[in-house]
Structure formats: C-alpha cells, structure tokens
C-alpha cells in the first residue's frame, strides 16, 4: 500500500480559499480521519487528492511521486486512488455487478469473464454476494454505499478516500458501512476519511485532524485529540460535536 503526503495544498474557488495551505502525512496502511464543521474544507481536500479538483498551489505525493503536477494526465492518477461519496453516486442504469466492473473493464482493459472471480470475491467479502444482480434502487442505503466501496476497490486502488460516507444513511445502517472500513484497515489499506462519526474516529483512526476554515488546526492520535485537545477551536468544536 502507498503513502500519501500533502505539502501546503491551496485550493481557491474564486475569492474563497477552501484549502489554505494544508500539510498532511498519511503513512502506508494508516487510517486518517478529518473532522470539522461543514465547510471546513474536508470534502474539497479529498476531491483535490483524487484530482477531481485541480489545486492552485502545493504538492501531493503518492508514494513519492508528485501527482499535482498540472501537466499530468489525471486519469492514470485517479485509477490509483479510490473515492467514495456521501451520496453513493452509483450508476442507476447498471446492476451492482456492472457498476463494479465498468472501470476495470475500461481502464484495466479486462474482460467480464476475467474480472468476475475477483469482483465476485469482493462482493462476497462485504456480504453482498446475493445483491450483485440488483439495481441500485433495489438496495438499501447501506447496501448501496457498500457497493460503492466495492466499485472503488475493484480498481485495486493504493489509497482510499471516504467523503462522509455515512452522513446520508439511516442511523441503523451506519454500522454495516463502518464495519467495512475496519475490514479494510485490517488488510492494510491506506485511507483518508472525512467524517462526523466521532466514536468511529476515536476507535479506528491512527490519526485525527481537526480542520477549520481550510486549515489543519490540530492533529494528533485520537485519544489525545479527543481527550486533551490543545487548541481552543478544537475544544469548542468537540464540546459541540460530542454533546
């Protein structure tokens, strides 16, 4: 698995600076959680790492290679970094299986038959073996989100990004999706996750970063950040979030 380093990443939308000089290190196999209020820049940062948004300044190193070089073809980079969105964004006109096979077929150039064992194994591992032939609207939110994770994993990414993937789910469905992340962590996947699930961050993260106004205000291991926040902004946010 790969390691990810962000150096002074700046992203502006017009006059608004959404990411304001962010430095972040994610060691191989680590799970880093980004917390902070809505609009703090968590989602945008993830979209920048995946090159869905071009950054204005700074560097992003994936295993030592700067992937933020403007002339770089984003397609090859995106194939190495998976991202899962808050609203699943499954392709509604395809079955769960087709959703997961599309990109490997097109980008990795494999046939359906060659892919099937590998993709089936993924569905199986995440408890979706009997859902492969269903269309997204026939699945619950939790199932859809797990299919979205399988779809990203089918590209064999080196890093996975999760953008508030449980925020659109009914509370009783959150657990099944978070369990998937624990499984991935066991397997040594490098992961960055924007989340409001403080309990999960405390339990599973190697490092938690608190973002505010596009800046990393404080980062530490979860025990220290949640129990002994140093910065007054972190303290204020946590006292509201953990109420």
């Amino acid at each position: 698995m790969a390691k990810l380093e962000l150096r002074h990443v700046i992203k502006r939308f017009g006059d608004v600076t959404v990411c304001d000089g962010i430095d972040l290190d994610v060691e191989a196999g680590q799970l880093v959680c980004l917390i902070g209020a809505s609009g703090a820049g968590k989602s945008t940062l993830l979209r920048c790492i995946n090159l869905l948004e071009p950054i204005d300044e700074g560097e992003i190193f994936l295993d030592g290679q700067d992937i933020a070089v403007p002339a770089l073809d984003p397609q090859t980079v995106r194939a190495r970094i998976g991202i899962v969105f808050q609203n699943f964004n499954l392709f509604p006109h395809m079955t769960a299986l087709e959703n997961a096979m599309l990109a490997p077929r097109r980008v990795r150039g494999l046939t359906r038959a060659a892919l099937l064992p590998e993709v089936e194994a993924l569905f199986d591992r995440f408890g979706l073996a009997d859902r492969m032939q269903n269309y997204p609207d026939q699945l619950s939110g939790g199932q859809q989100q797990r299919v979205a994770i399988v779809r990203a994993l089918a590209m064999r990414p080196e890093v996975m990004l999760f953008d508030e993937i449980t925020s659109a789910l009914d509370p009783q469905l959150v657990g099944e999706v978070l369990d998937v992340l624990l499984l991935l962590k066991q397997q040594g996947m490098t992961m960055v996750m924007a989340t409001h699930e403080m309990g999960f961050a405390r339990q599973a993260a190697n490092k938690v970063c608190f973002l505010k106004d596009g800046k990393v205000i404080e980062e530490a291991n979860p025990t220290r950040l949640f129990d002994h926040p140093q910065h007054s902004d972190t303290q204020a946010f946590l006292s509201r979030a953990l109420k």
Partner: protein
Amino acid sequence: MSEQKAAGMTRRAIFEQKQRRRATLIAASSTAIVVLALVVLIPMAPGWEKVQKSFFNGAVLAKSFPKLLEAFKINIMIFAWSAPAIAVLGLLIALARDAKSPALFPLRIFGAAFTDVFRGVPVILTVYLIGFGIPGLGLPRPWNSPYIWGSLALILTYSAYVAEIFRSGIDSVHHSQRAAALSLGLSERQAMRDVILPQAVRNVVPSQMNMLIALQKDVSLLSFIGPVEIFRQAGVFKSLLANFTPYVGAAIIFLIVTIPATRYADYLMARQTRERR
C-alpha cells in the same frame, strides 16, 4: 345508522361516496347538454347541408378510403427511413455541441450553426429549398428523386430539434455521476458513453416520442414537392369528386396512428414523473 354499519362503511367513506355520485351526475349532465347543443345547433346553421355533403359524405369516404390507406404506406416508408437517421444525426449534433477538446472546436461551431439554422427556418421552406434546389443541379436518376431530398429536408430539420432534446437530457444527468465515473479512472469520453449518455437517452424518451409523432404528420409536407402520399392522394380525390371528404378520411387515418402514440408518450412521461418523485 344501522344501515351504514351493515354496509361496513365509515362515515368518511359514506361522505366520499356521496361526493363521487354528485360529481358523476354533474359531469354526465353537463356533457349531455353540450352534446345536445352541438347536435341540435350545428344542423341549424344555414350551410350545414352543404358542409355535410362535401365533408362528411359516406359514399365518397368509402370510395376513397382504400386508396388513401395505400398512399399512407408512402408516409410510413418515408417516416421509417427518416426516423433512425434523425436519431443518429441528432445525437451526433448534440455531442458535437458539447465537445470540449480544442481540436473539435470547428465541430462545436458547426453544431451550433446547424441547430440555429434548421430550427429557425419553417419546415416547409426547408422542404422546398432542398427538395427543389438540389435536384435542380441536374443530378441523374435516381439522385433527382424528391423522396431523397424531401427526406433529407425532414432529417435536417428534425435532427436540430432532436439534438437540443438530447442536450437537455445530458444536462439532466447530475454532475456527480460524471465525477463518480472520472474518480474511477474513466476518461471524459468513457464517462459520457458508459455513464451519462445511457441515462440521458432514457430521460428524454418521452420528449423524443413527441418528436416522432410530429414527424409522422410533417411527412405530408413532402407532397408539395412530388410524392403522392396520403395528403396528395386526398387532394387528387378532392379534385376528382369535387368533395372534401377524402381530407376527413386522411385525418382519420392520421388519428388512428397518432392518438395511441400520443397516449403512449403521455404514459411514459407520467411514469417518469412518478419515478423522479
């Protein structure tokens, strides 16, 4: 009270049943009044006898109807080869207008000019200009056939409209679908082909059905440049029999095709609205 309980109805159900009966009664009587008025009043008009003879003449209808049906085959033929061509050209124009690569900029301009021109000119004018103009170049048979150039006029005009509908369909697919496709490593082109277009086409099926219905009717415009299709055939009968009934016959034949088609398009539209909710 005991009666109501025997029927097993709640007071709400009884009230609603009463309302329904009232509504049915009002609808029935108002319809009866209107129909009665038409049946009584129209024949009282001074010209009714003449109109009846020249527009609703049973003998003329019986005599002309088989030939009209025969001529309608030509409409169907022209429709059958124009519709697929329109679908393909319309889609190509839509994609050309959305082309992002700088190398394809001329294509973009062409697409915009194409839709501007052919949406801006009345269909009949396009049919005249292309239908008379191009054979006027002195092309040899069969390349001077009004079937070819008349169909081309319809294809060009309708492609312009159909392209705009496809474009609105592409816009109707949420941008997060494109983001999801790109995030998996697909190229812009692959995202369009595999993810956006299939959804876009599905979204605009009802609107395109309405274009097909309009096309079916506009095929008759080709009668002005030669082909003896149903409208022209009705005209022949009119001159022959000095009677307008063949036109009514032609209208009936059109309605037999277009009413079910329109209903089907409405059904698709309603189903889509339900699904969106």
